């Protein structure tokens, strides 16, 4: 057993922490208000290697571990949940799917563009009519010569507004169910591909979330990612791995709420003493800290297991479920500790709550996650 982060990851963490504090914290409120981050930020993220975290170095990536990824995402989320989500979706969904299933040719064509930040990546599974029930998706890919024509709608697609490359899941076998879905690379300029409405969201507002419309978008055979009709299996793996990132994101937001609360409680005076002296406040802080400790450990356990190549279906689910739910609680308590000031936009705590709520929903709602954990328990694949 060893619970220390490797030194190189600690060093990386400190770099990202400094960046998040200096280049993100002062602007996070504006970005949340405007639902937009400047191009300059994307360039800065690329320069730090944060747009190719898990991608091998020979494709321009940083070639880091899932543990490093979790540490990075937590540090970004500490200051701006939406930016963390942008990075998590780019790395943990789009690039993850390509790293997993793309051909050598596809990797050489697309990965350097993504890792350098020349293009952001997006990943499109969800549709207006199917979120949790993802396998029931209806976007269809009809054979056309050696390629396909994609027609359908995608919903709640992160990074869609800026992305140059989209991994899109579509049905290639109408009778195939989960075994009739394939993944395709769609480029922004493909004819018939329309980036639609941008959602006006409760939180994660600095991250763009859009609809996509596909009207007979032609994709050639070189655009199929992985095997025909086996896209859904890859999708499930991508989601599984992505959950660790969302868990880390949740930890970052919760930690933000705690850190702000500790600082506030030490200087805010009520009844003749700093409110940090009152047990009611101390107890909330203690519970937040305990929950964050446990959540982080669960995320690290899942990440290190994945780095070793182990099956992480249950561990990733457990980490995401626990971290996201405690984050919402911690952010609620964070607002409470700040009292009336916590309710205003002047302070970041209310934004942390609005950001945190997404983590209970995206990349597998808490309800789906519980189904996954129960299934792993009942089938004896996760043993107590």
């Amino acid at each position: 057993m060893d619970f220390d982060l490797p030194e190189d990851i600690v060093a990386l963490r400190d770099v990202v922490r400094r960046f998040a504090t200096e280049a993100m914290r002062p602007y996070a409120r504006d970005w949340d208000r405007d639902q937009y981050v400047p191009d300059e930020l994307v360039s800065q993220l690329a320069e730090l290697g944060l747009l190719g975290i898990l991608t091998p170095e020979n494709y321009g990536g940083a070639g880091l571990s899932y543990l490093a990824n979790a540490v990075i995402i937590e540090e970004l989320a500490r200051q701006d949940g939406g930016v963390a989500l942008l990075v998590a979706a780019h790395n943990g969904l789009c690039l993850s799917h390509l790293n997993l299933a793309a051909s050598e040719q596809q990797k050489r064509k697309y990965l350097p563009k993504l890792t350098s930040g020349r293009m952001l990546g997006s990943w499109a599974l969800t549709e207006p009519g199917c979120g949790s029930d993802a396998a029931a998706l209806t976007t269809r890919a009809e054979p056309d010569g050696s390629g396909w024509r994609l027609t359908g709608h995608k919903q709640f697609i992160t990074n869609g507004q800026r992305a140059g490359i989209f991994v899109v899941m579509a049905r290639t076998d109408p009778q195939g169910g989960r075994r009739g879905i394939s993944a395709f690379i769609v480029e922004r300029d493909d004819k018939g591909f329309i980036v639609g409405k941008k959602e006006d969201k409760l939180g994660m507002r600095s991250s763009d979330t859009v609809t996509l419309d596909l009207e007979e978008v032609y994709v050639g055979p070189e655009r199929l990612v992985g095997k025909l009709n086996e896209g859904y299996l890859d999708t499930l793996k991508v989601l599984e791995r992505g959950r660790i990132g969302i868990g880390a994101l949740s930890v970052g937001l919760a930690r933000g709420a705690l850190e702000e609360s500790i600082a506030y409680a030490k200087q805010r005076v009520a009844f003749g003493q700093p409110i940090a002296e009152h047990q009611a406040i101390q107890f909330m802080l203690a519970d937040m800290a305990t929950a964050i400790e446990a959540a982080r450990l669960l995320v690290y356990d899942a990440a290190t297991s994945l780095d070793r190549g182990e099956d992480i279906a249950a561990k990733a689910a457990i980490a995401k479920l626990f971290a996201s739910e405690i984050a919402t609680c911690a952010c609620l308590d964070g607002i409470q500790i700040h009292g009336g000031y916590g309710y205003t936009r002047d302070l970041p705590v209310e934004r942390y709550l609005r950001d945190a709520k997404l983590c209970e929903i995206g990349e597998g709602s808490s309800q789906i996650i519980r189904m996954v954990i129960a299934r792993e328990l009942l089938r004896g694949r996760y043993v107590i």
Partner: protein
Amino acid sequence: MDFRFNDEQRQMRDAVRDFCVNEVAPKAEWRDHEGRFEDGLIEKLGQMGLFGTYVPEEYGGAGQDVITYIMTVEELSRACAATGILVSAHHSLCVDPILNFGTEQQKRKYLPKLASGEWIGCFSLTEPGSGSDAGAARCSAVETADGWLINGTKSFVTNGLQAHVIVLFAVTEPDNPRRRLSAFIVEKNTPGCTIGKVEKKMGIRASSTTELIFENCLVPKDALLGERGRGLHVALATLDGGRLGVAAQAIGIMEAALETALNYSKQRVQFGRPICEFQAIQWKLADSAVAIAAARALTYRGAWLKQQGRPYSAEAAAAKLFASEASSRVTNMALQIFGGYGYCVDYPAERLLRDAKITELYEGTSEIQRLVIARHILNNPEWVRRG
């Protein structure tokens, strides 16, 4: 970074689990109903080396690490929570302070017999008038020409009936708030030391919880454990380790609860299906698994830090706080899964619920744990981002 047991620890875990399944679990219900440990249990535990897991071999122990020790408490508690605390109170609260604060002479005198289980140990800090407010203890130890004269009443001593050796905390300087208490090693058969009330408890009923009454009990000069006046420091340092043990006990209880509820849910049929197919049941199973995973991560990280010789008070408090409160939730969920049968003594669920509650109370109530954690993060805010 690696959260797994190493090969040696895994092997030990398998051996201990085997022992627990065959030698400890079958009589768990009996122990609860009878309110005592069966003859021969302590000998069996002793033969397995479970009373001295991290006592160095030179003192007759198994020479293993703290992680392995915490694993033994987890496994024992999974089989029988009362047996778990028998070992944990002995090892974490009596053996540990002698190991850490004892003179070479004291270690050589007490550790070998404690490690083998020939002697059982206990820890006596609490009094009727001072639990959480441990510093307000009144039992006194007055220095005389012939030794220390001890007078007072202690309460809630785990292992009180079985113990031969007591790590006792008494007032040696009543008017010095910073150096009020001192720690002592007292042999229970010393004249003037008697067992008072034996508590009847809600759970861990086989574990003995007793008063100790000291009436002009004279112990030798060299019974002093650690520096005079540093008793509270000895107590709190010792309780840090004890908290990991209680956390492990809570985890074991939760594991037993989930295992039994999981199995029950697979075979109980209602509305034409095993109830494990209903989301209402699946949600409880999933939430239990999550709680256990979180508790284990916190607890083993604490154990690892202790093994490394690094500060771990806040981590131990967090582990104990979380694991104990989770164990009440998880055992309650497990009982609910059993439905009406869960309420009957024929099924293990109600005993697990009754056993779980104590973990929120002893070795520092949840309220005290929260104070420890809060004080730590207010004084060290960088702790929350140390990773």
